[in-house]
């Protein structure tokens, strides 16, 4: 294969399980000069030393597609750095109210609906400021108060242990989560200007 001839250092594998369009993500990786390829089956994992789980749309439906891809057992056993984006992040949690779905449970938090819990408009759409929690390597060179782009109706609860960055929209929630080698961001780094590009570079250096 094309990629097997290359040094795999800093090659990012994108889990290609059919939950949403990934053109914007690959475009962002191209802009910052990161190499990537697609993970379609288990045998593809070994080519990459960083893994991204993208995702837009419905968390329950995304979990179903991930199960159908046959990649779940391999993902939960990964020791490489893994970054879930948006719904890909929510999949790392235990449970989502969206579709009343049990998820990967890699990080013991719940994904909840904004409706009934806040008075603001839903979806939470636009640029909001985040507060990284001190020592997360994902937010190296990203100052407190940086703005990133969010589009979501469900949020992951804020947690003193597992939140890597906080955001506030009527309620405090996790803009990013982290446990061991598993990371997730609720916002879209591929659409978050220079801050988002910095985050992708930070992830690739883990």
């Amino acid at each position, binding site marked *: 294969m094309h990629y097997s001839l290359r040094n795999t250092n800093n090659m990012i594998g994108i889990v290609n399980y059919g939950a949403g369009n990934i*053109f914007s993500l690959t475009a962002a990786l191209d802009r910052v000069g990161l190499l990537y390829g697609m993970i379609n089956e288990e045998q593809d994992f070994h080519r990459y030393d960083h893994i991204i789980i993208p995702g837009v749309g419905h968390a329950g439906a995304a979990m179903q597609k991930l199960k159908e891809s046959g990649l779940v057992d391999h993902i939960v056993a990964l020791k490489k750095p893994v970054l879930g984006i948006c719904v890909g992040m929510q999949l790392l949690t235990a449970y989502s109210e969206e579709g009343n779905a049990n998820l990967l449970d890699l990080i013991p938090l719940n994904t909840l609906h904004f409706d009934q819990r806040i008075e603001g408009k*839903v979806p939470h759409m*636009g640029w909001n400021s985040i507060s990284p929690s001190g020592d997360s390597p994902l937010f190296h060179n990203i100052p407190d108060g940086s703005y990133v782009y969010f589009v979501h109706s469900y949020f992951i609860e804020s947690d003193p242990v597992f939140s890597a960055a906080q955001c*506030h929209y009527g309620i405090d929630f996790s803009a990013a989560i982290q446990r061991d080698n598993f990371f997730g961001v609720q916002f879209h780094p591929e659409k978050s200007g220079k801050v988002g590009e910095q985050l992708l570079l930070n992830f690739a250096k883990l």
Partner: protein
Amino acid sequence: MLAKRIIPCLDVKDGRTVKGVNFVDLRDAGDPVELAWQYSQQGADELVFLDITATHEKRKTTIELVKAVARQVNIPFTIGGGINELRDAEILLNAGADKISINSAAVRRPELINELASAFGRQFVVIAVDTRYVDGGNFVHLRGGRDKTEIDTATWIREAEDRGAGEILLTSMDHDGTKNGFDNGFLKTINDQIHIPLIASGGAGSVQHFVDTFQQANVDAALAASVFHYGEILIPNLKRVLYEEGIVVR
């Protein structure tokens, strides 16, 4: 805090921007990709491209444009114009568009909103509404404000939200092109009735007009074209004034 958004709008025909642009350092003022990149560097929060290409065949140029923008620009963007069915929207999504904007196609067949929202999520679906004040009421207009319908604007916007719209782009045709400010009275009336983001459009002529629409109508975003294209308002300057006025901006 969620920031108020500033959105330049670019009219595109056959892959080229229509209105003249006179940024000093633009190599090609007609190149929408370069213009979009320039706006993103200036601090625009989002971009809207209105494709006024007439023929189906030339839509291919638009798809290439969408891909080029998605490759080079690191902020979200919306494509509007000529989207009549699910397939049109899907092609744009796969080319990297973050949202699509539909106007007359939704008025002709409102079920399209439900179909788009369930296929791609409501965050993908912006409903653009052109309104004009006639005989004591605001009515939805089509074809750039030329054709009046019998549809009450507020009723239509509430219906669009119920059907799955993720955002409303409301253009006052009475204010559009006047540079006398946004229609803040009507924008507030609408904003008080909906629970999805509202983008103000039509009438921007000065920095103060943006301050006014955020303070008086509490809209989520404000869109303008010519004041940005002709360099009459520079986005960094606009953002600085908004910040000084206590409005949350990025």
